[in-house]
């Protein structure tokens, strides 16, 4: 195992899975392998993928770390952004203020968990309802139309760079690189892994456990906010309930990506590959006219399937490298 907890079994497995899934769908509909379709998959995956990056940090910090409020943050961010834009605030300023608000929402989670010492699942369940409620109040319960906004703003979710979606090239991939560097290349990442592994030992080794975990919640609030902004720009509308499905799917992706739910392990690289798998499967099912009602169940099947395949692989590797 790498010093910072990187293990390559799960990423390889996920890459294989993505190829297999794609091949499977291509049997039904060979034209799924077109550029336009890959494009759609990427656009679908980017937003939940960003949220999952922050979620990875929170979960790997241990102490049953989890952020159930990410989807609510994304929705609230959209509403805040929408109100600002409708108040004729210049769009770069509106985006900046929204990002600041997102950091604040993450900080509230951080304080609830590290300072008030509320169990993360309860604290973020509470803020999930709080943020979602606030989004409804601020929006009056209706969607805010943004289609008339500056085309520069709308490009955040609809633009193209080098022939690929803007949000993939200019936002998601740089974020992924930054998070991977943060996790595997910096002292913060190392300290967070140690905290997730054994927080008592970490505190007694002089690590500031509360701050390390708190920072993860703040960063998670930030990625959820960016995802919310991208979503609003993509659809040209700010919806108070925009991210409600993302709360649990982001957790499923993180776990699928190989981050242990007890903390101290995992990588955003695995999370990114898991996002690819989910994006392919979700899009492929729709493309093959699968009843969308079954799609949620498929994610569950994939989760269990990966574990069932991985265990023998790990056992085989353990035998080989003994």
């Amino acid at each position, binding site marked *: *195992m790498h*010093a*910072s*907890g990187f293990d390559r079994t799960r990423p390889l497995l996920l890459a294989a899975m993505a190829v297999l899934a794609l091949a499977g769908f291509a049997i039904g509909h060979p034209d799924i392998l077109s550029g336009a379709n890959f494009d759609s998959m990427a656009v679908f995956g980017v937003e939940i993928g960003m949220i999952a990056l922050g979620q990875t940090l929170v979960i790997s910090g241990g102490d049953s770390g989890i952020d159930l409020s990410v989807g609510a943050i994304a929705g609230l961010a959209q509403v805040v952004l929408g109100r600002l834009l409708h108040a004729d605030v210049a769009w770069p300023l509106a985006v900046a203020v929204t990002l600041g608000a997102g950091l604040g929402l993450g900080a509230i989670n951080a304080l609830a968990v590290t300072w008030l010492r509320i169990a993360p699942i309860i604290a973020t369940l509470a803020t999930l309802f709080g943020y979602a409620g606030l989004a409804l109040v601020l929006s009056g319960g209706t969607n805010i139309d943004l289609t008339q906004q500056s085309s520069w703003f709308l490009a955040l979710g609809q633009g193209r760079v080098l022939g690929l979606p803007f949000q993939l090239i200019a936002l998601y991939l740089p974020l992924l690189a930054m998070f991977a*560097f943060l996790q595997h*290349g*910096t*002292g913060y*990442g*190392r*300290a967070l*892994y*140690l905290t997730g*592994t*054994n927080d*008592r*030992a*970490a*505190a*007694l*080794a*002089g*690590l*500031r456990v509360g701050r390390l975990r708190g920072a993860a919640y703040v960063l998670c609030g930030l990625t959820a906010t960016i995802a919310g902004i991208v979503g609003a720009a993509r659809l040209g509308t700010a919806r108070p309930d925009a991210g409600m499905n993302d709360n649990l799917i982001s957790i499923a992706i993180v776990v699928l990506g190989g981050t242990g739910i007890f903390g*101290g*392990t995992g990588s955003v690289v695995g999370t990114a590959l898991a996002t690819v798998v989910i994006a392919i499967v979700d899009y492929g099912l729709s493309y093959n006219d699968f009843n969308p009602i079954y799609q949620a169940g498929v994610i569950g099947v994939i989760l269990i399937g990966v574990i069932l395949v991985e265990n023998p692989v790990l056992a085989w590797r353990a035998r080989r490298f*003994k």
Partner: protein
Amino acid sequence: MALVELKGIVKRFGGVVALDGVDLTLVPGETHALLGENGAGKSTLIRVMTGAVVPDEGSITVGGTPCRFTHPAQASAAGIAAVYQEPMIYPHLSVLENIFAGAEMTGRFGIVRRGAMAAVVRPLLEQLDLPASLLVRRMSSLSIGFQQMVLITKALMLNAQVIIFDEPTSILSQAETDRLFVIIERLRRDGRAIVYITHRLDEIRRIASRVTVLTDGRVSGTALTSDLDEAKLLTLMAGKASRDYGKPLRDRAAPAHGTPALRMAGLTRAGAYQNVDWDVPAGQVTGVYGLVGSGRSEVALAAFGALRPERGTIALQGRPIAPRDPAEAMRLGIGYLPEDRKLQGIFATKPLEANLTAGTIGRFRARGGRLDFAGLRGEALRLIGYYRIKARDETIGIGTLSGGNQQKALFARWAGQSLKVLILDEPTRGIDIGTKAEIHDFIRDLAAGGLAVVVISSDLPEVLAVSDRIIVMRRGSVVGVAEGAAMNAEAILASAVGADARAA
């Protein structure tokens, strides 16, 4: 007539041979001590006997019948029970529920019959001089000593004929130890076979009639206790001539003058300690001796910022300080090696390197906020080399190392930093004699280098061996400070247990 006979037991883990043809005979009415350094195979042998590990070769016979245990329940049914150092329990359940865990007596519809279970246990408790009111207590509310008693009760309830004690006294107070020995002696006289595993040589003479020494997975000797003296035992165990253990390692430092490196005065925290004064001079080892529960660790944690005192002052080199957390205490130059290796010390699944450098990550920063991985590796290799940590390389998981090497690594984590005061809480608990002696030498070196070192220990020979002066604590108070000629075992023990006021 042998009750249990192990013959030619071999167990390999991958390429490592943990047990290499071990024979062991257990006779009813005899206490059989099992000695050996860490990694000698004691734990594996117990796990073979209790069915937790299936041996690759060899035979086990119980009462003349050959047995093959593939599951702990089979060993338990054959009358073999074990009492572990840190009892594996269900902390949230009552004592009664713990005793019958997995063996509940049930009536119709599977309803648990509490009354009937209590009726079965009550005479057993009486046998062990335990009050019947114990049954309704929560397991987690009991001290470790009582938790062990509960496990013994469970063994009696299962009518175990062989009871294995795995280093039971290493975290017990003196009184608890005495009580345990009385019970073990009673169990032996009832005709049970007792296996007693320990690191403490003095205990063997007190309790065991026969000793078997394991070295590197083999039996290096079996003898009656009466035929062995301490030097012979040590030679058998370490496989080499041992040092004269219990004597000072070198001339004691002269009493220090001037401002102590660390001074705590009138320190009080209700329920933990009251009016505690510690003077810790630089360039010396200050021993702190006291039984478990004497408040020694809590005082140390106050200096380390982990457990704040309610009253009193802490001064570092004459300057008053009030560290709010360990990080702040470390910045001031205070280090603390915690007493519980597994819970408070190691990051079990992480590499040795990350464990060694956990306290100094902040110092290894390269350009662009990147960790200086080469620097970290270099520091780890330096510590591994200097403190002679036995490991394949620095990337190996610390959890795979022996207990002694894990402890050395934790010691190195602290000793490798530049500090003013280093507090070592039970620096050698549960590790083999060879490693223990090495750590003692390192401690002396640190003091000789000018560091103010505190060694907290409930192992009196250890405190006597490494300390220049000794603070004795009992029930949250300092009851004596011994220097020079006053540092003798009897006086210190007497003041620690409150038997005598001479040492005060």
